[in-house]
């Protein structure tokens, strides 16, 4: 439902009535075919929101060319006709589909639902009003979002980096960080937006690729690249791409002389005032909750934090203050894409938990007639040629195409449609299939990427196998791109139709295979993430086996006292353990480890071995790896020899016990990044900055006379944690920056510990006398992670943490179907993020477990037993390990060998087919025969 806003949510969890206001689109979605003729004719131009005002759009438009749904809309504010009845109307005239409806009106819907998920997202901070950066005054000062559009090939400059003011090629560009973030004076947003550091680096690197020789400088306070593989990316940007990083706060942006160049002034690390001139300045604008989302929060009656984000708990990060209403994405705190996707899945898990009893009540499957077996019949091909209004017929001579098509072998029926995709054309095709007993269909129209599903459904409705249709792309790849040469376009259309006809002739009916699913889950690791995941699955009604190596549940959370927002961890963990242990659907296997695993999605079989050697075999449909991580044991800073140099975890214990050294100590020095962000371990442990700041606040609050120093490299109190950093500074905690090449030196001198470090502000070595030194130790991957990695064939990344399938879009999935990852096993993260990820993993697992069987795509690799002889050339090329070599006749090695393809693991990529010298394996729907026939047909003219 697009152009819709929620105006009211009545009722309560499980039974809401939501009022939705739908704005008029003025275009009939059922009729619009997305051809774009209307936009071409529309005389009115306005700024494009999509291009962040860098480009123009018309009054009738689509947001962007790949938009879903690809249906045009009229902006009533801009439309000449809607503003002035009786004028213009150019779009209506040109629309062959008759989709324009100027009389469209606003509609109100009342919808009953069981739960509501709020994911309204963010808007970027608008720096116009704050003045200092010159945004809105100097045309060459732009926001990072606008810069993103300038880089894009679909953007206003087609990806060429030129200045807005005079279209001069950009040579020098500066990025100013924290515009609209960490700054209460100018924008009122005290929090850190978390994503801008990384996106600035990315933009700088890509801009350098776009225009070689470009100089890029990033001006920052702290580089907060705390995500997975982010620090490596920053190092590469610095070392390989040559992006310059300057730690400072830029005083302001001014115009340099009479030209459009921009002058920045700042105080550099040596304390000198510096001025630099740039062609373009990019403001890394922060994220904030948009006004419409604030209204939504008001309408939904949920609480917000002081920073205007939805208030949630660390142990229930998607639950809002109103039961049954959930919040996710950047609405619940600034998030990058992978965190957003994770929280989306987490919200799904929470909803699933709430509504589990009503599962499958409202979802329905369409029913189709029985399929006709056409395998014995010779091909009878029907070809439908689409005019697509004038989109095709305006260029291609469809009449001639039709005459030509009728001469092709096995073509028994040809018909032209104005719009092949319209509902009446669908009905007509079904009718023709039956009356002409057609058994293969070619539709010459637009792209199979968008329309093949539609025509497959049409074939199913007609009782034909859905794979017996082929599309000839004579619009997107012909009439639209050869508009000026109708003759060539017509002859190419003939080729394309001939190719499609040839291909469909050797198409076979394909069946999608189904594999039964064991509706049980296995969770490996009994820490916070493991328990949350297990509990969520169990609450949804699935049996869960939870495996824990030690004799105690809780994992690393047992070492923690408070979350960043101040929730008491031991209480929450105890509650969680209690729920898990007593849950009737959860079987806890303490002191067990997974020692063997076999099977595939929906059908895993894992063997657990207990400490006493006892073995248990568990069958499960999905598995979640939540094995956590280890603490780094420092080798540096004389940790071994000086007793009062302790790790952060040890310090928490000592502090809690009010141990005598802590009690008496006056001077505390925290050293950050111990074992993180350095050679061989180029990653950020993410939680230690916040942790040290919290400890420092505790010490200062208890006794303001204590001296607390934090030696840091970049302070990474991201998101709303920034408030803690601010509080610590207010309380007098002293923050001293050090660089990797000037690490602090820690020595013992009788009763005091000397800490020497280079002070960047004072430009001299600083000597601190400490009574206690606390090392913020790194989080290390589990040393035995590789064992599990081998057992389930799930990969480990370079840092030794488990590697997800896609860093952004599939953050909790493994590339092996049916296996998921959550918590520290994936990467260092806070409890809140672990919980979110655990819920997400559960949601993803439940998408499988909620079904009795999983249907696999019909396009898959099949072994031709006549041709395959087990040479094993294809075994290792399969990216999914779906191919195994077996004896042709079981237990008779003399009878030769052949391969077996596990259908559940095969994704149909065809790499095996491309490797085979003897046609021993083929991909259904893309057989060697089909492809070669197509090639032959293409060259036949």
């Amino acid at each position: 439902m697009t152009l819709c806003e929620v105006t009211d949510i009545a009722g309560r969890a499980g039974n809401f009535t939501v009022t939705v206001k739908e704005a008029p689109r003025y275009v009939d979605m059922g009729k619009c075919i997305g051809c774009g003729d209307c936009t071409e004719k529309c005389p009115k131009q306005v700024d494009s929101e999509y291009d962040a005002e860098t480009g123009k759009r018309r009054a009738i438009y689509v947001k962007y060319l790949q938009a879903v749904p690809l249906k045009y809309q009229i902006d009533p504010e801009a439309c000449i006709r809607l503003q002035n009845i009786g004028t213009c109307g150019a779009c209506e005239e040109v629309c062959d589909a008759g989709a324009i409806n100027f009389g469209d009106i606003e509609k109100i819907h009342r919808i009953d639902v069981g739960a509501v998920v709020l994911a309204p997202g963010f808007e970027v901070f608008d720096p116009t009003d704050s003045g200092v950066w010159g945004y809105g005054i100097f045309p060459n000062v732009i926001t990072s979002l606008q810069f993103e559009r300038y880089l894009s090939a679909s953007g206003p400059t087609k990806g060429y980096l030129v200045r807005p003011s005079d279209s001069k090629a950009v040579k020098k560009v500066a990025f100013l960080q924290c515009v609209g973030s960490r700054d209460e004076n100018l924008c009122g947003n005290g929090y850190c937006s978390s994503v801008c550091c990384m996106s600035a680096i990315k933009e700088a690197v890509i801009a350098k690729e776009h225009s070689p020789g470009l100089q890029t400088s990033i001006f920052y306070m702290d580089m907060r690249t705390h995500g997975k593989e982010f620090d490596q990316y920053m190092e590469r940007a610095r070392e390989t791409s040559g992006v310059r990083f300057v730690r400072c706060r830029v005083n302001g942006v001014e115009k340099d002389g009479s030209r459009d160049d921009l002058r920045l002034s700042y105080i550099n690390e040596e304390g000198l005032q510096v001025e630099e001139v740039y062609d373009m300045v990019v403001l890394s604008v922060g994220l904030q909750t948009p006004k419409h989302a604030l209204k939504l929060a008001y309408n939904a009656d949920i609480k917000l934090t002081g920073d205007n984000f939805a208030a949630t708990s660390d142990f229930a990060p998607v639950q809002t203050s109103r039961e049954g209403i959930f919040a996710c994405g950047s609405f619940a705190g600034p998030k990058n894409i992978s965190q957003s996707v994770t929280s989306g899945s987490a919200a799904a898990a929470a909803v699933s938990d709430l509504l589990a009893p009503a599962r499958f009540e409202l979802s329905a499957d369409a029913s189709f007639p029985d399929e006709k077996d056409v395998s014995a019949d010779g091909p009878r091909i029907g070809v439908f040629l689409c005019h697509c209004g004038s989109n095709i017929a305006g260029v291609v001579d469809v009449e001639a195409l039709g005459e030509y098509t009728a001469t092709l072998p096995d073509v028994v029926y040809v018909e032209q449609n104005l719009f092949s995709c319209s509902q009446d054309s669908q009905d007509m095709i079904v009718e023709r299939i039956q009356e002409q007993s057609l058994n293969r269909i070619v539709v010459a129209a637009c792209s199979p990427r968008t329309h093949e599903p539609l025509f497959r459904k049409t074939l199913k409705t007609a009782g034909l196998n859905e794979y017996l249709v082929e599309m000839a792309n004579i619009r997107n790849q012909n009439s639209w791109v050869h508009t000026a040469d109708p003759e060539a376009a017509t002859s190419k259309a003939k080729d394309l139709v001939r190719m499609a006809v040839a291909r469909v002739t050797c198409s076979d009916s394909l069946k999608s295979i189904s594999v039964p699913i064991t509706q049980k889950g296995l969770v490996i690791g009994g820490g916070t993430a493991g328990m949350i995941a297990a509990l969520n699955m169990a609450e949804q009604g699935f049996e869960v086996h939870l495996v824990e190596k030690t004799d105690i549940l809780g994992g690393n959370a047992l070492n923690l006292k408070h979350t960043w927002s101040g929730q008491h961890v031991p209480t929450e963990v105890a509650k969680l353990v209690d729920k898990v242990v007593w849950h009737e659907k959860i079987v806890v296997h303490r002191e067990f480890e997974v020692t063997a695993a076999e099977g595939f999605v929906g059908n895993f079989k894992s063997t657990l071995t207990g400490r006493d050697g006892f073995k248990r075999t568990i069958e499960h449909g999905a598995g979640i790896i939540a094995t956590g991580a280890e603490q780094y044991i420092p080798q540096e800073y004389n940790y071994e020899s000086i007793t009062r140099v302790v790790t952060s975890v040890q310090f928490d214990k000592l502090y809690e016990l009010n141990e005598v050294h802590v009690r008496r100590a006056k001077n505390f020095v925290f050293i950050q990044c111990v074992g993180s962000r350095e050679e061989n371990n180029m990653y950020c442990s993410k939680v230690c900055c916040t942790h040290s700041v919290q400890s420092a606040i505790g010490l200062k609050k208890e006794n303001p006379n204590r001296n607390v120093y934090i030696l840091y490299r970049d302070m990474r109190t991201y998101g709303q944690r920034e408030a803690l950093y601010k509080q610590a500074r207010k309380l007098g905690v002293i923050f001293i920056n050090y660089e990797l090449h000037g690490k602090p030196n820690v020595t013992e001198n009788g009763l005091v510990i000397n800490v020497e470090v280079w002070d960047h502000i004072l430009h001299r070595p600083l000597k601190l006398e400490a009574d206690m030194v606390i090392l913020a130790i790194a989080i290390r991957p589990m040393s035995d992670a590789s064992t599990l990695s081998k057992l389930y064939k799930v990969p480990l990344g370079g840092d030794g943490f488990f590697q997800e399938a896609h860093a952004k879009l599939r953050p909790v999935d493994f590339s092996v179907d049916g296996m998921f990852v959550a918590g520290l096993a994936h990467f260092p993260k806070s409890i809140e993020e672990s919980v979110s990820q655990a819920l997400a993993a559960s949601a993803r697992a439940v998408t499988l477990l909620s079904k009795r069987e999983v249907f696999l795509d019909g396009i898959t690799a099949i072994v031709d037993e006549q041709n395959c002889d087990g040479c094993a050339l294809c075994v290792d090329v399969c990216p999914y390990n779906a191919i195994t070599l077996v004896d042709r006749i079981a237990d008779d090695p003399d009878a030769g060998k052949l391969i077996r393809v596990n259908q559940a693991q095969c994704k149909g990529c065809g790499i095996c087919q491309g490797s085979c010298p003897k046609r021993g394996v083929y991909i259904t729907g893309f057989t060697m025969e089909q492809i070669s026939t197509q090639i032959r047909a293409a060259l036949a003219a």
Partner: protein
Amino acid sequence: MGFEPKIIAFCCHWCAYAAADLAGAARMQYPHNVRIVRLMCSGMMHPEFVMDALSQGADGVMVLGCHLDECRYRDGNYRALDRSDMVVELLEDFGYEPERFNLTWVSSQEPDKFVKAVTEMTVRIKKLGPVNDVQG
């Protein structure tokens, strides 16, 4: 009479084929010499197709796949890369100019790159002349 070459382009369903669709939506114009054969992955391309196409009169063959590390099937495009390097060398053995083959990475968001690739290929093949001339 100008020589109008025939070029077969194997396009990965997920990226290059999508880019070609998008080029259409953006009404970008490019030479009409290319005939696209859709594959699920550039890794599906059997080198045999290249030789078949050339021996049946195609004047050039292109393979267009996703950017490295962005393959839908993990590393299918790396397979395509290895094979393509090999095909280029073997073309000489079989008496074809290596320039008749081209491998390009195009993401689904880069219609401009697709257009550029096919345009350049067409120009290159026009310079080379028809494929039959070199067959000995």
